């Protein structure tokens, strides 16, 4: 059975969570595994809630077959006698056990033994006084230079001092953890070099290669010879038959005293005149299942005999391969992270571009007081609003919601915004403007992509009209009567049918009235229990807050929304525009 602690495999010098020195006055978990007998890792519970599991994203990652993806959580609760820590099982497959009794929920006392799965990985709950061994710095303080030094030391001490190889690779492993968590760039090549150097040192082989799993097989990642020279991909010749055997079976092949058996006749081995071959799988536990998968291969060969590898050395090499497998897995995460960061940067630029399409400032149009708010689900949104300057003192504003989310929605919203601005310049009535935009969108977009839009035009006397193209009803707060009226849609969304006509409906925003135009992301915002914010709630807030003006209503809407969602993930873009007649 494979036990893996991440971040930071069982190294002497770190807490499990990077860079979190243990607070002496707080409770801790002591984690002891087969890798660190007698020297438990310390994990501080000072951070509040801690989720323990096997999947990335939890606070304490423990890779063990009996540990569920999200296994248990430990929370700090205030009780009459002072704060206590409570462990709660998260419907784990193999259960959470405290002092050999299965528990769903248990108030922890110092000395309690927590087992994830019966006889699985064991943690001990302790108060801070037991944590002296853990009150040190995390791997964040490890520097790359330290790896260099470690690798150099490796070369000096090999192959006798077996324990050191383990701990040096652990340091690399920790450094990768650090890079993963703190997003620093790290070179895969350097990591591979360290692994290869160690392997050459232990084995006395002439050449060493790392192959990484790619689509359709294993391909060259890096090669090194025993004098320290890099071997390029062109020099990459290995015995394919050996590699296939290891890749297929997941078992190492050691032939250090001459090639024998069926492989002796293998063409590649004969052609390369090889005397010795060692080939080991680099395995990592997959995130999705408990099965160890071969993610890479460490291949060593020699035209001479290698060191006569004793049973111990074989074990050493196997151990090295095991650690290298973990390192490889972490490297994957680091690379993924780097890729993510690149995409995020591009998105940030796109977001800026899109924001530049929105009005930089709200128009000053007496007697109206205008507020606008927009928050996209993802960086790029499908909602937008705009105020279009029209002569003769009229205020023209619009709010639109493009179907879909993210980049496709943002592209369509940019197209629509551009088309609207062009059409409005022609000076035609708004109904004709929308017909023109609709025709353009029908021609440019497939039928399932569309835009709902609410457009209003108001003169300084508060009179004007609106057109709702399939948009959810806007609300008009009547100051004099103190109630809310609904302004329903009169026509179909833009971009669906080319011959839709858009007819204006009269609208008057009288002194003391307040017009609320919004996207359904507001009313459909969900809380943790999947309940929607809802139209009733929105109308209630409007009735109560609108008499105190647009600014006050805006801040109330946002605070009520936050209070309702309680941080639950936003599922749709949220946008609203408020127009108050202050005359």
């Amino acid at each position, binding site marked *: 059975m494979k036990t893996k602690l991440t971040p930071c495999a069982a190294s002497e010098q770190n807490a499990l969570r990077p860079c979190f020195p243990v607070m002496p006055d707080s409770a801790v978990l002591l984690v002891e595994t087969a890798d660190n007998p007698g020297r438990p890792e310390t994990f501080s519970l000072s951070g509040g809630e801690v989720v323990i599991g096997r999947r990335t994203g939890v606070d304490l990652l423990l890779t063990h077959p009996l540990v569920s993806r999200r296994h248990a959580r430990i929370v700090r609760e205030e009780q009459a006698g002072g704060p206590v820590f409570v462990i709660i099982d998260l419907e784990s497959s193999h259960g959470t056990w405290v002092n050999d009794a299965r528990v769903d929920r248990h108030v922890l006392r110092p000395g309690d033994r927590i087992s994830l799965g019966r006889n699985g990985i064991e943690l001990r709950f302790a108060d801070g006084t037991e944590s002296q061994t853990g009150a040190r710095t995390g791997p964040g303080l490890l520097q790359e230079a330290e790896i260099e030094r470690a690798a150099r030391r490796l070369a000096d001490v090999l192959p006798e001092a077996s324990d050191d190889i383990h701990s040096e690779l652990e340091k690399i492993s920790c450094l990768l953890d650090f890079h993963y968590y703190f997003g620093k760039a790290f070179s895969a090549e350097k990591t591979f070099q360290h692994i290869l150097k160690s392997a050459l040192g232990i084995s006395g082989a002439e050449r060493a290669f790392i192959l990484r799993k790619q689509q359709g097989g294993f391909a060259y990642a890096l090669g090194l010879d025993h004098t320290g020279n890099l071997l390029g991909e062109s020099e990459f010749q290995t015995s394919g038959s050996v590699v296939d055997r290891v890749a297929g079976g997941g078992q190492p092949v050691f032939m250090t005293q001459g090639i024998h058996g069926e492989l002796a006749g293998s063409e590649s081995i004969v052609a390369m005149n090889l005397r010795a071959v060692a080939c080991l799988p680099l395995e990592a536990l997959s995130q999705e299942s408990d099965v160890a998968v071969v993610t890479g291969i460490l291949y060593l060969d020699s035209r001479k005999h290698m060191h006569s590898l004793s049973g111990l050395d074989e074990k050493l090499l196997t151990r090295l391969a095991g650690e290298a497998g973990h390192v490889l897995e972490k490297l994957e995460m680091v690379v993924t992270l780097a890729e993510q960061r690149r995409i995020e940067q591009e998105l940030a630029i796109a977001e800026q571009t899109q924001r530049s399409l929105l009005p930089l400032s709200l128009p000053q149009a007496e007697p109206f007081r205008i507020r606008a708010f927009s928050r996209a689900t993802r960086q790029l949104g499908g909602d937008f609003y705009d105020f279009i300057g029209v002569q003769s003192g009229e205020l023209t504003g619009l709010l639109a919601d493009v179907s879909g989310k993210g980049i496709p929605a943002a592209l369509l919203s940019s197209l629509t915004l551009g088309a609207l601005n062009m059409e409005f310049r022609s000076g035609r009535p708004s109904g004709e403007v929308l017909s023109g935009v609709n025709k353009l969108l029908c021609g440019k977009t497939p*039928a*399932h992509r569309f835009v709902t839009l609410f457009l209003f035009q108001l003169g300084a006397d508060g009179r004007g009209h609106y057109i709702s193209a399939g*948009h959810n009803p806007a609300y008009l707060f009547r100051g004099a009567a103190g109630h809310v009226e609904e302004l329903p849609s009169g026509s179909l969304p833009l971009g669906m*049918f080319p011959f839709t006509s858009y007819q204006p409906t009269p609208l008057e925003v009288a002194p003391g009235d307040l017009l609320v135009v919004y996207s359904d992301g507001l009313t459909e915002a969900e809380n943790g229990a999947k309940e929607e914010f809802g139209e009733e709630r929105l109308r209630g807030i409007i009735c109560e807050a609108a008499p105190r003006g647009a600014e006050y209503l805006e801040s109330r809407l946002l605070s009520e929304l936050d209070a309702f969602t309680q941080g639950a993930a936003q599922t*749709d873009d949220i946008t609203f525009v408020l127009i108050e007649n202050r005359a």
Partner: protein
Amino acid sequence: MSLKLNTRDVDGVMVITVAGRITLGEGSSDIRDKVHELAANGTKKILLNLSDVTYIDSSGIGELVAGYTTMAGAGGTLKLVGLTNRVKDLLQITKLYTVFDVHEDEAHAVRSF
């Protein structure tokens, strides 16, 4: 995939029963693809039975419209039956009620073609 489609022939009308959530990224384009495939095979009458649709968002509405325009473009007809309140509301808000031929029960809808 949370969307399930089941197609059967009822007196010459292809009835597609849709079950699950019609929403962005959860197989919502399946409806569009299915209608497209049927239209390409010469089907002129399609009835979408939406009584087992648990949730629909605006992208889902877009899929219904795409199905409608595909059929209209191919000289056929697409009608709807079994609308849940959520779908009804959305069709009402977007005024699409005026576009779709909507029926209350399947037998009645099949006869209406």
